[in-house]
C-alpha cells in the first residue's frame, strides 16, 4: 500500500475552558447556558476606559495543569495582546500569552497497542475566550448576527503538543489522556460538544525515513473524539494522495466538514492573520515564586497514571483494565466506591467496563448523569453472589436499574426474578422440554453436542431465565 510509504506527523493545539468561579479579568460568573448577555460587565464587554484584573484562580489552575503535564514553570511570565477584529471579541484583541508562557516543555504518556508512548508538550499558556455569534450560515452573507458575550473573558488554557503523534488513533489517545488528566485535576469540564475542550490539529506527511517535516495544514472545527480521528485520517490520506500525484501541499488552515466528512480550505498562509502581538500594558508581568509552585504541587490530586498503578498494585487488575477505569475521574470514583463495599474488584471492574459502559454509550450519558449508583451495583452483586439471581437475570436487573433508578431488591421482588433453585420445579420443566423435543434428544444421543445447548436454552426460556443454570445442566444430563 502507498500509505505505508508515508509517515504522518501530527501536533495538537487544545483549548480548554477553565471552570474558575469568575472570568479571567473581571468578576463575572463563568457559567454555561445562561440567558444571553447576562454574565457581562463593562470589563468583559470591552467598554471604554475599563481595565483587566488578573484572576488568581486562573493562574492556580494553569499551574496545576502545567505540573500535571510535567512542564517547567516559568518564574516570570507576562500577558500579551493578540489583535484581530471579530464581533465576538469585545476589545478586538484577546489577552493571551505570546513569548513568555506560564509553562513549557512537558509531556504525557499514551498507551498504544505497541506500548507506552511519550508525547511532548511544547507549552501551556493562559488566555481569555471570545463570545458567541448566532447567525445564518456565513457571517459575511447573513442578514444579521446575534452576539452573546457570556463566554467572553472566560479563562482558557492553550496546550500545545510537540508534533509527536503518528496516527489518528494516537491523536485521539493524546486528547483522551489530556482530557482525563484535566478531569482528575477538576480544572475543566472538558466537554467537546459544548466547546469547553476544543482541538486543532497540525498535520503533515513525509516519506518514511525522511527527517525533514512536510508542509503542514492546520485542521479546525473537530467537535468530538470521533470527528478528530476521522478528520486527521482524512487529512493524512488527502495529503498522501496529492504527493502521490506529484503535487505539493499548500500551507493553509482547513476546516472539518462533519456532514461531508472532508476537510476544506479556509485560508492560505498568505491570508493568515497578522496578530500584531505586543505586551499587554494594562497588566503587570507575573512573578511565579517557587513556594507557590511547591504549594500547588503538593495540592495535586491523584492523576490517571498514579490511579492506574494503584489499581494494578492493589487490586491486581490488568494494565489494560486499569487504564480503562482511569480514563475518567467519575468512572474511577464509581469503581473505588464499589470496591470499598465489595470484595471482588475484578467482578466490579467487569461490570463497570462492560454493562455500565455499554449502557452509558448507548444512551449518550456520563456516569454521573446516570441513575446507577455504586450502592445499587454492589447490592446487585450480592444478590448474584448469594444465588438470589443468576448471571443472566443480573443483566436484566442492571438494565432495569439503569433505566428506572430503582434498587435491585425492589426490581427482583416486583418482577419475580428470583432464581429458581427448587430441584423438583426444574426437574418438571426438564421433563417437559425433553418430551417436547424428541428429535433434538435423539440428535444428542447420536453424539451431536450442540443439541444439548439448545435443550438448555429451551429450559431457561420456559423458566423465563430464572432457573439456576448449574441445576439445569445437571438435571438435563441426568434426564438424558
Amino acid at each position, binding site marked *: 500500500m502507498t500509505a505505508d510509504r508515508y509517515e504522518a506527523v501530527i501536533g495538537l493545539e487544545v483549548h480548554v475552558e477553565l471552570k474558575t468561579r469568575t472570568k479571567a479579568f473581571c468578576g463575572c460568573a463563568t457559567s454555561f447556558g445562561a440567558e444571553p448577555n447576562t454574565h457581562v460587565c463593562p470589563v468583559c464587554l*470591552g467598554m*471604554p*476606559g*475599563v481595565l483587566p484584573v488578573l484572576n488568581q484562580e486562573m493562574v492556580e489552575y494553569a499551574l496545576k495543569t502545567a505540573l500535571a503535564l510535567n512542564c517547567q514553570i516559568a518564574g516570570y511570565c507576562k500577558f500579551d*495582546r493578540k489583535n484581530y477584529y471579530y464581533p465576538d471579541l469585545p*476589545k*478586538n484583541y484577546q489577552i493571551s500569552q505570546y513569548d513568555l508562557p506560564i509553562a513549557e516543555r512537558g509531556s504525557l504518556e499514551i498507551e498504544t497497542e505497541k506500548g507506552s508512548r511519550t508525547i511532548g508538550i511544547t507549552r501551556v499558556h493562559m488566555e481569555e475566550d471570545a463570545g458567541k455569534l448566532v447567525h445564518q450560515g456565513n457571517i459575511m452573507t447573513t442578514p444579521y448576527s446575534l452576539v452573546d458575550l457570556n463566554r467572553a473573558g472566560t479563562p482558557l488554557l492553550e496546550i500545545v503538543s510537540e508534533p509527536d503523534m503518528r496516527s489518528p488513533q494516537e491523536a485521539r489517545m493524546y486528547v483522551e489522556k489530556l482530557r482525563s488528566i484535566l478531569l482528575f485535576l477538576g480544572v475543566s469540564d472538558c466537554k467537546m460538544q459544548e466547546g469547553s475542550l476544543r482541538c486543532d490539529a497540525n498535520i503533515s506527511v513525509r516519506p518514511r525515513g525522511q527527517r525533514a517535516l512536510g508542509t503542514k495544514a492546520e485542521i479546525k472545527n473537530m467537535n468530538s473524539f470521533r470527528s478528530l480521528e476521522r478528520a486527521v485520517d482524512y487529512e493524512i490520506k488527502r495529503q498522501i494522495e496529492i504527493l502521490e500525484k506529484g503535487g505539493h501541499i499548500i500551507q493553509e488552515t482547513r476546516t472539518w466538514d462533519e456532514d461531508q466528512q472532508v476537510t476544506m480550505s479556509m485560508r492560505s498562509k498568505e491570508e493568515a492573520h497578522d496578530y*500584531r502581538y*505586543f505586551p499587554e500594558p494594562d497588566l503587570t508581568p507575573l512573578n511565579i515564586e517557587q513556594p507557590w509552585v511547591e504549594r500547588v504541587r503538593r495540592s495535586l490530586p491523584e492523576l490517571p497514571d498514579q490511579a492506574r498503578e494503584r489499581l494494578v498494585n492493589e487490586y491486581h487488575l490488568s494494565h489494560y483494565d486499569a487504564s480503562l477505569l482511569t480514563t475518567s475521574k467519575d468512572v474511577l470514583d464509581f469503581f473505588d466506591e464499589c470496591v470499598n463495599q465489595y470484595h471482588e474488584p475484578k467482578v466490579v471492574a467487569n461490570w463497570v467496563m462492560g454493562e455500565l459502559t455499554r449502557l452509558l454509550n448507548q444512551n449518550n450519558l456520563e456516569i454521573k448523569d446516570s441513575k446507577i449508583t455504586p450502592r445499587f451495583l454492589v447490592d446487585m452483586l450480592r444478590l448474584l453472589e448469594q444465588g438470589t439471581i443468576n448471571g443472566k437475570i443480573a443483566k436484566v436487573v442492571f438494565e432495569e436499574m439503569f433505566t428506572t433508578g430503582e434498587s435491585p431488591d425492589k426490581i427482583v421482588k416486583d418482577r419475580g426474578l428470583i432464581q429458581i433453585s427448587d430441584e423438583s420445579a426444574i426437574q418438571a420443566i426438564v421433563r417437559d422440554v425433553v418430551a417436547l423435543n424428541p428429535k433434538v434428544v435423539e440428535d444428542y444421543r447420536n453424539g451431536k453436542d450442540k443439541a444439548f445447548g439448545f435443550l438448555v436454552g429451551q429450559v431457561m426460556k420456559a423458566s423465563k431465565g430464572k432457573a439456576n443454570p448449574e441445576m439445569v445442566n445437571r438435571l438435563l444430563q441426568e434426564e438424558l
Partner: protein
Amino acid sequence: MKLYQQTVQKIGEMLARREVTAQEVLASIAERIGQVENKIQAFTTLTLKEAEGIAADLDSRGEVGDLTGIPCGIKDNMCTRGIRTTCASEMLENFVPPYDATVVNKLKSAGAVMVGKLNMDEFAMGSSTENSGFFPTHNPWDLTRVPGGSSGGAAAAVAAGEVFYALASDTGGSIRQPASFCGVVGMKPTYGMVSRFGLVAFASSLDQIGPVTRTVTDCALVMNAICGHDRQDSTSLQLEVPDFRSYLQTDIKGLKIGFPREYFQKGVDQEVKDTIKKVLLKYEELGAIVEETSLPHSEYALPAYYIIAPAEASSNLARFDGVRYGYRDTHAEDIIGMFSSTRARGFGPEVTRRIMLGTYALSSGYYDAYYLKALKVRRLIKEDFDQAFDKYDVLISPTATSVAFKIGEKSEDPLSMYMSDILTIPVNLAGIPSISIPGGFVDNLPVGLQLMGRPLSEGTLLKAAYAFEQATDYHLRTPVMEV
C-alpha cells in the same frame, strides 16, 4: 475679587467658615461660564443642572472638606456615570458610561461639584485641541491662539475662571503643555500614582491622570484626593499617599537642581529659553544649587514615543467598532464593511493617522525594527533620568518650545505639531512625575516652567514649585477678557 477668581484653597476656607455656600460658589462659576464660554469653548458638555443639585445637597448636609462644594471640570476622556463621555470624538458623541472612573468616584466622595466635561484633542491625540471632533478651544490669554493640548479645555477653563480646577490626562505632555500655554499649574504624577480605571485609554503605558489648577497649593489639594492604589487598575502602585500639603514650604536651601542642556537647544524659542534661564537665577537666589547637566538620549524620545504611543493606541482604539456602543455606520453591506466605514467616519484624521502608524509599527516584519527598538530607547531615556537623579533632586526645563501658537498655525503640519511636545515626552517614557507652573511671560503670553523629579517625588516637586511661586507673582496674573 469675584468668587470664581479665588483658589480652591481660599474657597475651601470660605466654605468651611460658612462665609459662602456651595450654591453661591456655583452661581459665580455659572455666571462666569455664561460670560466667557462662548469665546473659550472649553466644555464639550455642561452639567450645571446636576451641579446645582449636588451643591444644594452639600449645603444642606454642611460637610466640610478640601474639595467639598468646589466646582471643577473633568476632561472628557474620563468616564462619568450617566453623563456622556465623548473623548471629543464623533465615535463616542452619544456614549453615556454606566460607571464612573475611579478618579471621578474619588472626587464625588470628596464632595466635588462637577460642572462639565472638558474639550480635548480627539482621544487625547494632539497638542492644540484643534483635533477635537467638535470645535477648537481658545486660549483665554489670546483668543486667536490655541490653549495647547490635548487637555486644552481643562487648562483654558481653569485659566478663564470657568472652574477652580480640572482633572486632565497626560500621555506625552497633555497636561503640562496646555498648562504652560494657559499660565496655570499642571501636574503629571508618577506612572501608577493615580488609577487609570475609567480613563479612556490612549497609550496605556504612558497615560496618567493629574490636576490642572491655578496654584501649587491647589495642585497639592487635588493630588491628595486622587492618588492611591486601586484594585481595578493593576498598574496602580501600592503605597501610602502622603499629605502633599506638608511639602508646601518655601525653604529650598541646598536643593540640587539640574538643567539638561538638551532642553535648551535649537527648536526652543529664544525668549522661552531666556525666561527659564531667569527662573534658574531665581532658584539660585532662593538658595538652590543649580548646575547644567545632560540627558544624552533626549533626541530619540520623540521618535520612540511616536512608535510606542500609536502602537498601544492602535490596539486600545480597536474596540470602537460599532458593534456594542458608540457610532455605527448602518449603511454598510456586511460586517467588514461596517467595521471599516464606522471607523473611517467615526475617527478624525489625526486619530486615523496614529492608528495606522501604530498598526504598521506592530506588523510582523517591522516589530523588531520599530516597536522593540523604541522600547530599548525608552529604557535608555529612563537610565538618563536615573543617572541625573543620582546627582539632582529636580530637573528644570521649559515645558514647551514656545508660547501658545496661533490657531491654524500648525494644524496642517503634523510633524511640527508633534515637535511641540518634545520637552514633555521623555517624562512619560520614563514614568517620572513632572509639574508645569507659570515661569514668566513673553509678550503677555505665559511661559511654562517644567520641573521633573525621580519616581514618587511629587512632594519634592511641589515644594520646589511652591518656593518659586511664592517668590514670584506670575500665578497671580489672569487673562483679561472682554466680557
